[in-house]
Protein backbone atom coordinates (compact mmCIF):
# COMPACT_ATOMS: atom_id res chain seq x y z
CA UNK A 1 0.00 0.00 0.00
CA UNK A 2 1.43 3.39 -0.98
CA UNK A 3 1.80 6.34 1.35
CA UNK A 4 -0.77 8.22 -0.69
CA UNK A 5 -3.32 5.41 -0.44
CA UNK A 6 -2.76 5.06 3.31
CA UNK A 7 -3.24 8.76 3.80
CA UNK A 8 -6.39 8.83 1.64
CA UNK A 9 -7.92 5.93 3.54
CA UNK A 10 -7.02 7.50 6.86
CA UNK A 11 -8.39 10.87 5.71
CA UNK A 12 -11.66 9.28 4.54
CA UNK A 13 -11.91 7.45 7.87
CA UNK A 14 -11.51 10.74 9.75
CA UNK A 15 -14.13 12.38 7.52
CA UNK A 16 -16.58 9.59 8.28
CA UNK A 17 -15.79 9.70 11.95
CA UNK A 18 -16.16 13.47 12.22
CA UNK A 19 -19.09 13.52 9.78
CA UNK A 20 -17.30 16.32 7.97
CA UNK A 21 -19.56 16.58 4.95
CA UNK A 22 -19.22 20.28 4.13
CA UNK A 23 -16.11 21.79 2.51
CA UNK A 24 -15.62 24.00 5.58
CA UNK A 25 -15.54 21.04 7.94
CA UNK A 26 -13.23 19.13 5.64
CA UNK A 27 -10.89 22.11 5.61
CA UNK A 28 -11.01 22.31 9.41
CA UNK A 29 -10.28 18.59 9.60
CA UNK A 30 -7.37 18.97 7.19
CA UNK A 31 -5.93 21.75 9.35
CA UNK A 32 -6.32 19.57 12.43
CA UNK A 33 -4.53 16.69 10.73
CA UNK A 34 -1.76 19.06 9.65
CA UNK A 35 -1.32 20.16 13.26
CA UNK A 36 -1.22 16.53 14.33
CA UNK A 37 1.41 15.84 11.71
CA UNK A 38 3.53 18.64 13.15
CA UNK A 39 3.18 16.92 16.52
CA UNK A 40 4.62 13.79 14.93
CA UNK A 41 1.39 11.83 14.44
CA UNK A 42 1.27 10.17 11.04
CA UNK A 43 -1.21 7.66 9.58
CA UNK A 44 0.06 4.13 9.14
CA UNK A 45 -3.24 2.45 8.39
CA UNK A 46 -6.88 3.11 7.70
CA UNK A 47 -7.64 3.81 11.36
CA UNK A 48 -4.22 3.84 12.97
CA UNK A 49 -1.62 6.47 13.66
CA UNK A 50 1.99 6.31 14.73
CA UNK A 51 3.78 8.75 16.99
CA UNK A 52 7.14 9.97 15.69
CA UNK A 53 9.63 11.43 18.14
CA UNK A 54 9.34 15.09 17.21
CA UNK A 55 12.45 15.93 19.20
CA UNK A 56 14.52 13.86 16.79
CA UNK A 57 16.70 15.96 14.48
CA UNK A 58 15.70 13.95 11.44
CA UNK A 59 11.98 14.21 12.15
CA UNK A 60 12.32 17.91 12.85
CA UNK A 61 14.11 18.36 9.54
CA UNK A 62 11.43 16.48 7.59
CA UNK A 63 8.64 18.43 9.29
CA UNK A 64 10.46 21.65 8.44
CA UNK A 65 10.72 20.58 4.81
CA UNK A 66 14.50 20.21 4.91
CA UNK A 67 16.37 17.37 3.20
CA UNK A 68 17.47 14.52 5.48
CA UNK A 69 19.65 11.54 4.84
CA UNK A 70 18.81 7.93 5.61
CA UNK A 71 21.63 5.62 4.65
CA UNK A 72 22.45 6.30 1.00
CA UNK A 73 19.16 7.95 0.19
CA UNK A 74 18.21 11.54 0.84
CA UNK A 75 14.53 12.20 1.58
CA UNK A 76 12.82 15.52 1.45
CA UNK A 77 9.28 16.45 2.46
CA UNK A 78 7.85 18.42 -0.42
CA UNK A 79 4.18 19.19 -0.13
CA UNK A 80 3.31 15.81 1.30
CA UNK A 81 5.36 13.65 -1.12
CA UNK A 82 8.89 12.42 -0.51
CA UNK A 83 11.66 12.37 -3.09
CA UNK A 84 14.73 10.16 -2.76
CA UNK A 85 18.13 11.19 -4.05
CA UNK A 86 21.35 9.27 -4.10
CA UNK A 87 23.19 11.29 -1.56
CA UNK A 88 24.82 10.24 1.70
CA UNK A 89 24.57 12.80 4.49
CA UNK A 90 24.07 13.27 8.14
CA UNK A 91 23.38 10.27 10.34
CA UNK A 92 25.82 8.71 12.75
CA UNK A 93 27.17 5.20 12.29
CA UNK A 94 24.93 3.82 15.07
CA UNK A 95 21.84 5.23 13.45
CA UNK A 96 22.86 3.76 10.10
CA UNK A 97 23.30 0.33 11.72
CA UNK A 98 19.87 0.66 13.35
CA UNK A 99 18.27 1.56 10.06
CA UNK A 100 19.97 -1.38 8.35
CA UNK A 101 18.58 -3.76 11.01
CA UNK A 102 15.15 -2.14 10.65
CA UNK A 103 15.20 -2.58 6.87
CA UNK A 104 16.24 -6.24 7.28
CA UNK A 105 13.40 -6.72 9.77
CA UNK A 106 10.91 -5.19 7.35
CA UNK A 107 12.04 -7.58 4.59
CA UNK A 108 11.66 -10.53 6.96
CA UNK A 109 8.14 -9.42 7.83
CA UNK A 110 7.22 -8.99 4.17
CA UNK A 111 8.55 -12.48 3.46
CA UNK A 112 6.61 -13.91 6.40
CA UNK A 113 3.30 -12.32 5.40
CA UNK A 114 3.91 -13.24 1.75
CA UNK A 115 4.34 -16.92 2.70
CA UNK A 116 1.19 -16.80 4.86
CA UNK A 117 -0.82 -15.41 1.97
CA UNK A 118 0.53 -18.00 -0.48
CA UNK A 119 0.08 -20.98 1.88
CA UNK A 120 -3.54 -20.48 2.87
CA UNK A 121 -3.72 -18.23 5.88
CA UNK A 122 -6.73 -15.95 6.13
CA UNK A 123 -7.90 -14.36 2.91
CA UNK A 124 -5.95 -11.30 1.90
CA UNK A 125 -8.63 -8.74 2.75
CA UNK A 126 -9.03 -10.10 6.25
CA UNK A 127 -5.27 -10.25 6.61
CA UNK A 128 -5.02 -6.58 5.63
CA UNK A 129 -7.60 -5.63 8.22
CA UNK A 130 -5.69 -7.50 10.91
CA UNK A 131 -2.29 -6.16 9.89
CA UNK A 132 -0.58 -4.03 12.49
CA UNK A 133 1.84 -1.21 11.73
CA UNK A 134 5.37 -2.45 11.57
CA UNK A 135 7.42 -1.34 14.54
CA UNK A 136 10.55 0.00 12.91
CA UNK A 137 13.17 2.20 14.50
CA UNK A 138 11.80 5.28 16.17
CA UNK A 139 8.19 4.85 15.03
CA UNK A 140 5.93 3.78 17.90
CA UNK A 141 2.43 2.63 16.91
CA UNK A 142 -0.33 3.86 19.18
CA UNK A 143 -3.74 2.43 19.90
CA UNK A 144 -6.28 3.41 17.24
CA UNK A 145 -7.00 7.10 17.77
CA UNK A 146 -6.04 7.01 21.41
CA UNK A 147 -3.26 9.48 20.76
CA UNK A 148 -4.97 11.87 18.40
CA UNK A 149 -8.43 12.61 19.68
CA UNK A 150 -8.81 15.17 22.38
CA UNK A 151 -11.95 13.63 23.76
CA UNK A 152 -12.99 10.00 23.89
CA UNK A 153 -16.74 10.54 23.97
CA UNK A 154 -18.80 11.24 20.87
CA UNK A 155 -19.07 14.88 19.88
CA UNK A 156 -22.45 16.46 19.23
CA UNK A 157 -24.07 15.72 15.92
CA UNK A 158 -26.31 18.68 15.14
CA UNK A 159 -25.26 22.12 13.92
CA UNK A 160 -26.51 23.64 17.17
CA UNK A 161 -24.51 21.26 19.39
CA UNK A 162 -21.55 22.85 21.20
CA UNK A 163 -18.17 21.68 19.96
CA UNK A 164 -15.92 23.53 22.40
CA UNK A 165 -15.90 26.06 25.21
CA UNK A 166 -13.30 28.75 25.72
CA UNK A 167 -12.58 29.76 29.30
CA UNK A 168 -9.91 32.41 29.48
CA UNK A 169 -7.05 31.26 27.29
CA UNK A 170 -8.03 27.59 27.45
CA UNK A 171 -10.36 25.86 25.01
CA UNK A 172 -11.98 22.59 26.00
CA UNK A 173 -13.19 20.27 23.28
CA UNK A 174 -16.54 18.97 24.40
CA UNK A 175 -17.71 15.40 24.29
CA UNK A 176 -21.41 14.55 24.34
CA UNK A 177 -22.74 13.61 27.74
CA UNK A 178 -25.77 11.40 28.20
CA UNK A 179 -27.98 10.58 31.14
CA UNK A 180 -28.19 6.86 31.84
CA UNK A 181 -30.74 5.73 34.42
CA UNK A 182 -30.85 9.27 35.77
CA UNK A 183 -27.09 9.46 36.19
CA UNK A 184 -24.62 11.59 34.27
CA UNK A 185 -21.02 10.53 34.79
CA UNK A 186 -18.69 12.70 32.72
CA UNK A 187 -15.04 11.75 32.74
CA UNK A 188 -13.81 14.81 30.88
CA UNK A 189 -15.21 18.06 29.45
CA UNK A 190 -18.73 17.27 28.25
CA UNK A 191 -21.89 18.99 27.08
CA UNK A 192 -25.10 17.39 28.30
CA UNK A 193 -27.00 16.29 25.22
CA UNK A 194 -30.27 18.13 24.53
CA UNK A 195 -29.56 21.18 26.67
CA UNK A 196 -29.99 23.94 24.11
CA UNK A 197 -31.49 26.99 25.83
CA UNK A 198 -29.49 26.65 29.05
CA UNK A 199 -26.47 24.73 27.88
CA UNK A 200 -25.09 22.43 30.57
CA UNK A 201 -21.38 21.67 30.59
CA UNK A 202 -19.25 19.69 33.02
CA UNK A 203 -15.52 20.25 33.31
CA UNK A 204 -13.08 18.45 35.61
CA UNK A 205 -12.15 21.04 38.25
CA UNK A 206 -8.48 20.05 38.05
CA UNK A 207 -8.38 20.96 34.34
CA UNK A 208 -9.21 24.60 35.02
CA UNK A 209 -5.94 26.51 34.91
CA UNK A 210 -7.17 29.76 36.43
CA UNK A 211 -10.31 30.56 38.42
CA UNK A 212 -13.37 31.94 36.65
CA UNK A 213 -14.43 35.42 37.77
CA UNK A 214 -17.70 37.33 37.62
CA UNK A 215 -18.30 39.10 34.27
CA UNK A 216 -15.75 36.90 32.52
CA UNK A 217 -16.77 36.11 28.94
CA UNK A 218 -17.03 32.39 28.19
CA UNK A 219 -17.43 31.40 24.57
CA UNK A 220 -19.11 28.32 23.19
CA UNK A 221 -18.42 27.39 19.61
CA UNK A 222 -21.21 25.45 17.95
CA UNK A 223 -20.61 22.76 15.34
CA UNK A 224 -22.04 25.22 12.82
CA UNK A 225 -19.04 27.47 13.58
CA UNK A 226 -21.13 30.13 15.33
CA UNK A 227 -19.48 31.52 18.46
CA UNK A 228 -21.84 32.27 21.36
CA UNK A 229 -20.57 34.61 24.12
CA UNK A 230 -21.78 34.36 27.71
CA UNK A 231 -21.10 36.68 30.62
CA UNK A 232 -20.57 35.09 34.05
CA UNK A 233 -23.27 36.28 36.48
CA UNK A 234 -22.89 33.86 39.37
CA UNK A 235 -20.34 31.48 40.84
CA UNK A 236 -21.67 29.43 43.68
CA UNK A 237 -21.62 26.10 45.46
CA UNK A 238 -24.85 24.12 45.19
CA UNK A 239 -26.04 20.82 46.59
CA UNK A 240 -25.72 18.04 44.03
CA UNK A 241 -29.47 17.47 44.30
CA UNK A 242 -30.22 21.04 43.19
CA UNK A 243 -30.78 20.12 39.56
CA UNK A 244 -32.92 23.23 39.01
CA UNK A 245 -29.68 25.03 38.16
CA UNK A 246 -29.61 22.94 34.96
CA UNK A 247 -32.81 24.41 33.58
CA UNK A 248 -33.82 27.88 32.37
CA UNK A 249 -35.79 29.50 29.54
CA UNK A 250 -33.24 32.30 29.28
CA UNK A 251 -30.36 31.64 26.89
CA UNK A 252 -27.63 30.82 29.34
CA UNK A 253 -24.87 28.45 30.34
CA UNK A 254 -24.06 26.49 33.45
CA UNK A 255 -20.61 25.03 33.97
CA UNK A 256 -20.31 22.35 36.63
CA UNK A 257 -16.82 21.89 38.03
CA UNK A 258 -16.73 18.27 39.10
CA UNK A 259 -14.10 16.13 40.78
CA UNK A 260 -13.69 12.61 42.13
CA UNK A 261 -14.68 13.49 45.66
CA UNK A 262 -18.01 12.30 46.96
CA UNK A 263 -18.86 15.63 48.54
CA UNK A 264 -22.49 16.70 48.55
CA UNK A 265 -21.92 20.01 46.79
CA UNK A 266 -20.47 21.22 43.51
CA UNK A 267 -19.09 24.55 42.34
CA UNK A 268 -21.17 25.86 39.43
CA UNK A 269 -20.70 28.85 37.17
CA UNK A 270 -23.80 30.47 35.68
CA UNK A 271 -23.45 32.75 32.66
CA UNK A 272 -26.04 34.58 30.58
CA UNK A 273 -26.01 35.22 26.86
CA UNK A 274 -23.97 38.39 26.28
CA UNK A 275 -26.18 40.07 23.67
CA UNK A 276 -23.81 43.01 23.35
CA UNK A 277 -20.98 40.62 22.47
CA UNK A 278 -23.04 38.55 20.08
CA UNK A 279 -22.12 39.03 16.47
CA UNK A 280 -25.55 39.43 14.92
CA UNK A 281 -24.48 42.65 13.19
CA UNK A 282 -23.05 40.47 10.47
CA UNK A 283 -26.47 38.96 9.90
CA UNK A 284 -28.19 42.33 9.64
CA UNK A 285 -25.33 44.00 7.83
CA UNK A 286 -27.23 43.86 4.57
CA UNK A 287 -29.61 46.41 6.09
CA UNK A 288 -26.87 48.91 6.99
CA UNK A 289 -25.83 51.69 4.63
CA UNK A 290 -23.41 54.62 4.51
CA UNK A 291 -24.45 58.18 3.73
CA UNK A 292 -22.90 59.31 0.44
CA UNK A 293 -24.49 62.57 -0.69
CA UNK A 294 -23.26 64.71 -3.61
CA UNK A 295 -22.26 67.68 -1.37
CA UNK A 296 -20.76 65.86 1.60
CA UNK A 297 -23.94 65.69 3.66
CA UNK A 298 -27.66 65.08 3.31
CA UNK A 299 -30.77 66.29 5.09
CA UNK A 300 -32.68 64.09 7.48
CA UNK A 301 -36.36 64.99 7.20
CA UNK A 302 -39.38 64.48 9.38
CA UNK A 303 -41.21 63.03 6.36
CA UNK A 304 -40.58 63.01 2.58
CA UNK A 305 -40.08 66.67 1.61
CA UNK A 306 -40.96 67.57 5.23
CA UNK A 307 -39.10 69.66 7.80
CA UNK A 308 -35.36 69.09 8.17
CA UNK A 309 -34.66 67.51 11.57
CA UNK A 310 -30.93 66.94 11.12
CA UNK A 311 -27.96 66.72 8.78
CA UNK A 312 -26.05 63.51 8.14
CA UNK A 313 -22.44 63.75 7.02
CA UNK A 314 -21.13 61.42 4.33
CA UNK A 315 -19.82 58.21 5.85
CA UNK A 316 -22.43 58.10 8.62
CA UNK A 317 -23.71 54.56 9.17
CA UNK A 318 -27.50 54.25 9.01
CA UNK A 319 -29.96 51.41 9.10
CA UNK A 320 -33.02 51.33 6.85
CA UNK A 321 -36.10 50.49 8.91
CA UNK A 322 -37.52 47.33 7.44
CA UNK A 323 -40.95 47.85 8.98
CA UNK A 324 -41.61 51.18 7.21
CA UNK A 325 -42.43 51.02 3.54
CA UNK A 326 -40.41 53.30 1.24
CA UNK A 327 -42.25 56.19 -0.38
CA UNK A 328 -41.92 57.31 -4.02
CA UNK A 329 -42.43 61.06 -4.16
CA UNK A 330 -41.25 63.73 -6.60
CA UNK A 331 -39.28 61.21 -8.62
CA UNK A 332 -37.26 60.04 -5.56
CA UNK A 333 -37.47 56.96 -3.43
CA UNK A 334 -37.57 57.98 0.23
CA UNK A 335 -36.65 55.53 2.98
CA UNK A 336 -36.98 55.82 6.74
CA UNK A 337 -33.64 55.34 8.48
CA UNK A 338 -32.19 55.21 11.96
CA UNK A 339 -28.67 56.26 12.86
CA UNK A 340 -26.38 54.50 15.32
CA UNK A 341 -27.01 57.33 17.82
CA UNK A 342 -30.78 56.95 17.60
CA UNK A 343 -31.87 59.74 15.24
CA UNK A 344 -34.70 58.76 12.91
CA UNK A 345 -36.17 60.31 9.79
CA UNK A 346 -36.51 60.16 6.01
CA UNK A 347 -33.76 60.44 3.39
CA UNK A 348 -33.49 59.92 -0.35
CA UNK A 349 -32.28 56.37 -0.97
CA UNK A 350 -30.04 57.47 -3.87
CA UNK A 351 -27.70 59.06 -1.30
CA UNK A 352 -27.12 55.82 0.58
CA UNK A 353 -24.48 53.26 -0.32
CA UNK A 354 -24.61 49.63 0.78
CA UNK A 355 -21.83 48.64 3.16
CA UNK A 356 -19.14 46.61 1.41
CA UNK A 357 -19.46 42.93 2.36
Amino acid sequence: MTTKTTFEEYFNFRIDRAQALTPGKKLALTKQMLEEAHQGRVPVGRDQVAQLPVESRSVKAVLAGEPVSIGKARMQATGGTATMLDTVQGLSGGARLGIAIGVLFVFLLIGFFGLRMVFGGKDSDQANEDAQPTPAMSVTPTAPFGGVVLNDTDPGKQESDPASIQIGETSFVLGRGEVDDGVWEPTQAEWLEGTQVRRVIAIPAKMLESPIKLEDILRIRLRSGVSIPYSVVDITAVQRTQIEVLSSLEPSLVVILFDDTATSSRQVVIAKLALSEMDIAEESEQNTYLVSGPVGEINLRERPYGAVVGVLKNGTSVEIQIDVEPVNDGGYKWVRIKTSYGAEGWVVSTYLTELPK
Partner: protein
Amino acid sequence: MKRMKRMKRIILLSLLIFLTFTIITPISVQAQQEEAVRVEVFAFVDRNGDKLMSQSEGIENTPIILTVGDRSQVKILKEGRVTFSLPYAEVEEVRVEIPYLAIGDESKPRNGVAQIKFRLDPPELPVYLP
Protein backbone atom coordinates in the same frame (compact mmCIF):
# COMPACT_ATOMS: atom_id res chain seq x y z
CA MET B 1 -96.31 67.15 -17.81
CA LYS B 2 -96.25 66.78 -14.04
CA ARG B 3 -96.00 63.04 -14.45
CA MET B 4 -92.97 63.46 -16.70
CA LYS B 5 -91.22 65.69 -14.14
CA ARG B 6 -92.00 63.17 -11.39
CA MET B 7 -90.60 60.35 -13.47
CA LYS B 8 -87.40 62.36 -14.12
CA ARG B 9 -86.94 62.95 -10.38
CA ILE B 10 -87.39 59.26 -9.64
CA ILE B 11 -84.88 58.31 -12.35
CA LEU B 12 -82.32 60.85 -11.08
CA LEU B 13 -82.76 59.69 -7.51
CA SER B 14 -82.35 56.05 -8.57
CA LEU B 15 -79.22 56.94 -10.53
CA LEU B 16 -77.78 58.76 -7.49
CA ILE B 17 -78.46 55.76 -5.25
CA PHE B 18 -76.95 53.41 -7.83
CA LEU B 19 -73.78 55.52 -8.10
CA THR B 20 -73.48 55.77 -4.33
CA PHE B 21 -73.43 51.99 -3.85
CA THR B 22 -71.48 51.00 -6.98
CA ILE B 23 -68.68 53.58 -7.25
CA ILE B 24 -68.07 55.27 -3.90
CA THR B 25 -68.17 52.11 -1.77
CA PRO B 26 -65.51 50.12 -3.70
CA ILE B 27 -63.02 52.99 -3.25
CA SER B 28 -63.28 52.79 0.53
CA VAL B 29 -62.93 48.98 0.43
CA GLN B 30 -59.76 49.27 -1.63
CA ALA B 31 -58.27 51.65 0.94
CA GLN B 32 -58.89 49.14 3.71
CA GLN B 33 -57.09 46.34 1.83
CA GLU B 34 -53.61 47.96 2.23
CA GLU B 35 -52.87 46.53 5.66
CA ALA B 36 -49.51 45.22 6.98
CA VAL B 37 -48.28 41.68 6.74
CA ARG B 38 -47.74 40.33 10.23
CA VAL B 39 -45.02 37.81 10.98
CA GLU B 40 -45.57 36.01 14.28
CA VAL B 41 -42.73 33.96 15.71
CA PHE B 42 -43.06 31.51 18.59
CA ALA B 43 -40.22 29.63 20.27
CA PHE B 44 -40.76 27.36 23.23
CA VAL B 45 -39.58 24.33 25.15
CA ASP B 46 -42.45 21.85 25.13
CA ARG B 47 -42.10 20.76 28.74
CA ASN B 48 -45.54 19.14 28.99
CA GLY B 49 -45.30 17.53 25.56
CA ASP B 50 -48.61 18.88 24.26
CA LYS B 51 -47.00 20.36 21.11
CA LEU B 52 -48.41 23.77 22.06
CA MET B 53 -46.78 26.76 23.72
CA SER B 54 -48.17 26.85 27.23
CA GLN B 55 -47.53 29.39 29.94
CA SER B 56 -43.96 29.30 31.27
CA GLU B 57 -42.68 27.45 28.20
CA GLY B 58 -41.70 30.47 26.09
CA ILE B 59 -38.01 31.16 25.47
CA GLU B 60 -36.86 34.58 26.68
CA ASN B 61 -34.46 37.32 25.56
CA THR B 62 -33.17 35.59 22.46
CA PRO B 63 -32.45 37.52 19.25
CA ILE B 64 -34.57 36.68 16.22
CA ILE B 65 -33.61 37.72 12.70
CA LEU B 66 -36.33 38.28 10.12
CA THR B 67 -35.24 38.42 6.50
CA VAL B 68 -37.51 39.61 3.70
CA GLY B 69 -35.85 39.67 0.32
CA ASP B 70 -32.53 41.46 0.81
CA ARG B 71 -33.51 43.22 4.03
CA SER B 72 -33.43 41.97 7.59
CA GLN B 73 -34.38 43.05 11.07
CA VAL B 74 -33.51 41.85 14.55
CA LYS B 75 -35.93 41.64 17.47
CA ILE B 76 -35.78 39.95 20.85
CA LEU B 77 -38.09 37.14 21.99
CA LYS B 78 -40.27 37.96 25.00
CA GLU B 79 -42.21 35.17 26.69
CA GLY B 80 -41.60 33.00 23.67
CA ARG B 81 -43.02 35.31 21.02
CA VAL B 82 -42.20 38.27 18.83
CA THR B 83 -44.16 40.00 16.07
CA PHE B 84 -42.84 41.82 13.04
CA SER B 85 -45.11 44.21 11.10
CA LEU B 86 -44.43 44.64 7.41
CA PRO B 87 -46.39 47.22 5.44
CA TYR B 88 -45.30 45.84 2.07
CA ALA B 89 -48.17 44.91 -0.19
CA GLU B 90 -46.29 41.99 -1.72
CA VAL B 91 -44.35 39.71 0.60
CA GLU B 92 -43.85 36.32 -0.98
CA GLU B 93 -41.75 34.63 1.67
CA VAL B 94 -40.16 35.48 4.99
CA ARG B 95 -37.26 33.75 6.73
CA VAL B 96 -36.77 33.70 10.47
CA GLU B 97 -33.58 32.59 12.21
CA ILE B 98 -32.54 32.09 15.82
CA PRO B 99 -28.73 32.35 15.67
CA TYR B 100 -28.37 31.25 19.31
CA LEU B 101 -29.99 27.91 18.53
CA ALA B 102 -28.63 27.70 14.97
CA ILE B 103 -32.12 27.09 13.61
CA GLY B 104 -34.28 28.84 11.03
CA ASP B 105 -37.45 28.42 9.01
CA GLU B 106 -39.36 30.01 6.14
CA SER B 107 -43.00 30.81 5.66
CA LYS B 108 -45.33 32.32 3.06
CA PRO B 109 -47.87 34.79 4.44
CA ARG B 110 -51.50 33.79 4.04
CA ASN B 111 -54.20 36.41 4.46
CA GLY B 112 -51.58 38.86 5.66
CA VAL B 113 -50.18 36.64 8.42
CA ALA B 114 -47.13 34.38 8.54
CA GLN B 115 -46.61 32.19 11.58
CA ILE B 116 -43.39 30.37 12.40
CA LYS B 117 -43.08 28.12 15.42
CA PHE B 118 -39.91 26.65 16.91
CA ARG B 119 -40.62 23.79 19.30
CA LEU B 120 -37.82 22.29 21.37
CA ASP B 121 -38.00 19.06 23.33
CA PRO B 122 -37.00 19.38 27.00
CA PRO B 123 -33.63 17.77 27.76
CA GLU B 124 -33.30 14.70 29.95
CA LEU B 125 -31.66 15.87 33.16
CA PRO B 126 -29.80 13.76 35.73
CA VAL B 127 -31.21 13.32 39.22
CA TYR B 128 -28.08 14.84 40.73
CA LEU B 129 -25.11 16.84 39.52
CA PRO B 130 -22.04 14.87 38.41
